């Protein structure tokens, strides 16, 4: 059992300190409260909640998910309850449970991102704000903020101006130059970067001779994309000085260690939550044991694979 504050596992991301480096990724763990009856959600490093928009969103036409080799596609379309219900009903439950809450938020315009951030800024019980500028599953907006350094910097700067919350920006692997986007959000005042969001893929139903998903394409996640995520964290680590939360296909201790050694200060676990909703706590326990055997801390590991 990981104590709530293990010295070995505690990890510092600028203004945000996590008790352990395992955060459950947005879109794969609901609002966290759904798991509280059988997972000790307060012991998680954090929960990044399902992306919140100004208005509730019903989501895309089904089918919305299908499996791929060692992974899956989703085209959920950011179905969510909207900020009003989240603040009135969900956030109080999260506060009561003692969850380290990272509010993932999504909009299709800078004005809406700013309005969301300003409203979250007034609330207690939010550890950090994560801007989703990289969702591949909505037609308007979404990913276009995340594929150019200038656009990413503009939205980050506008949000930075209205909130003092620790600010995390989630990057897309579809940027032509993810380092440029990372530098852009750093220069605009982001406190940290989370990466990578899903990358678009397609599965064809050969019987129907049509794409399997209702939206034809979906965001690919799971172990199949891990080498892509590790490579990108390794590259971005060399180009920014703000901390990185690495994600993409983490399903074992070794996967998490790869991200830390590439340069991540914390990690997010996504698709693996579906097969094992308590996996992040198990991995935290395994990381504690691994570090203890070697008399290391998480901080010792960050970026240790860099260099010749």
């Amino acid at each position, binding site marked *: 059992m990981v104590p709530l504050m293990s010295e070995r596992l505690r990890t510092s991301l600028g203004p945000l300190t996590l008790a352990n480096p395992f955060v459950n990724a947005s*879109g*794969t*763990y*609901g*609002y966290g409260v*759904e*798991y509280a*009856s*059988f*997972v000790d959600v307060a012991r998680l490093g954090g929960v990044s909640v*399902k992306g919140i928009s100004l208005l509730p969103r*019903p*989501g*895309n*036409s*089904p*089918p*919305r*998910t*299908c*499996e791929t*080799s*060692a*992974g*899956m596609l*989703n085209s*959920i379309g950011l*179905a969510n309850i909207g900020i009003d219900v989240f603040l009135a009903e969900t956030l109080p439950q999260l506060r009561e449970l003692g969850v380290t809450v990272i509010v993932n938020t999504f909009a299709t315009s800078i004005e809406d991102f700013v309005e969301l951030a300003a409203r979250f800024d007034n609330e207690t019980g939010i550890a950090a704000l994560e801007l989703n500028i990289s969702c591949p599953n909505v037609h308007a907006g979404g990913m276009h903020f995340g594929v150019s350094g200038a656009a990413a910097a503009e939205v980050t700067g506008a949000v930075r101006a209205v909130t003092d919350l620790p600010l995390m920006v989630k990057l897309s692997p579809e940027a032509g130059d993810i380092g440029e986007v990372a530098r852009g959000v750093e220069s605009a005042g982001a406190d940290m970067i989370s990466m990578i969001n899903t990358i678009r893929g397609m599965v064809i139903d050969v019987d129907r001779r049509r794409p399997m998903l209702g939206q034809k394409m979906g965001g690919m996640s*799971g*172990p199949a994309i891990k080498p892509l995520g590790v490579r990108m964290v390794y590259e971005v680590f060399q180009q920014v000085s703000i901390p990185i939360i690495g994600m993409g296909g983490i*399903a074992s201790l070794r996967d998490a260690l790869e991200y830390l050694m590439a340069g991540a200060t914390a990690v997010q676990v996504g*698709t*693996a*939550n*579906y*097969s*094992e*909703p*308590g996996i992040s706590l198990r991995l935290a326990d395994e990381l504690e044991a691994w570090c203890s055997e070697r008399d290391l801390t998480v901080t010792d590991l960050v970026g240790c694979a860099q260099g010749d």
Partner: protein
Amino acid sequence: MKYLHTRITEVTYPARDHALLRFAAAAEDIPAVPGEFVMIRGDWGCHPVLPRAFSLVESGAHGAVLVKAIGPGTQLLESMKVDDELVVFGALGKGYRIDDSGLRPVLVAGGVGVAPLLFLARELAARGQRPLFLYGAGTEHDLPLADEIAEVAELIITTEDGSVGEQGLITAPLQRALQDGADSIVYTCGPNGMLKAVAGVSQSHNTPCQVALEAPMACGMGTCKGCAVPIPDGSFKYVCYDGPVFDAEVIYGAADE
């Protein structure tokens, strides 16, 4: 709601390509009503990544699920042996709401959709009822658990190729049953096309009908929003937590629409 790292305690093969897996429920029983389901995954590495949803055939000190080997995940499950590890969470979703107003229960199963309905038939038998059980399949090899059904229900089988039972679709004996005048309630589970046809026949006889749906699912508990089904008013229902059992008119609309 339970979350178990458990082991398979018994495997039987009730039909070709089908396995009935029993697993221990650990310290507390798994409470469930017929129609509720569990998410199951074996210890097989990172492919396939997602667990699979199965209606419970039994609950209590043991859970049991009926697996038909179709894709990679179900093939792996169908080949599992006693003592193999399973991650199980459940019971999940909303099951059949069993009528207690005296309607005659008519259970309509298609293929592997038999699983929750055998559970329901046994539940009804425990209440002293002997339901009518209509069981359809393509051929004689796709009728698992028919003997178990016959112990607790009046069983009528149809096959499309006529290899056993009546030749044709399950809607034919359903038409006859609902024409005989007794006030009935239909509980059904099976392929989507069959469910819609069964709901239509029920509706034409003003008979209430509850359908158990299936959809691709990742989380099983309402968080991923993957298992959406569109309903007539243009909104979505989620199979895993609004269902999997729905009143048929919620999914297909009322008669006058």
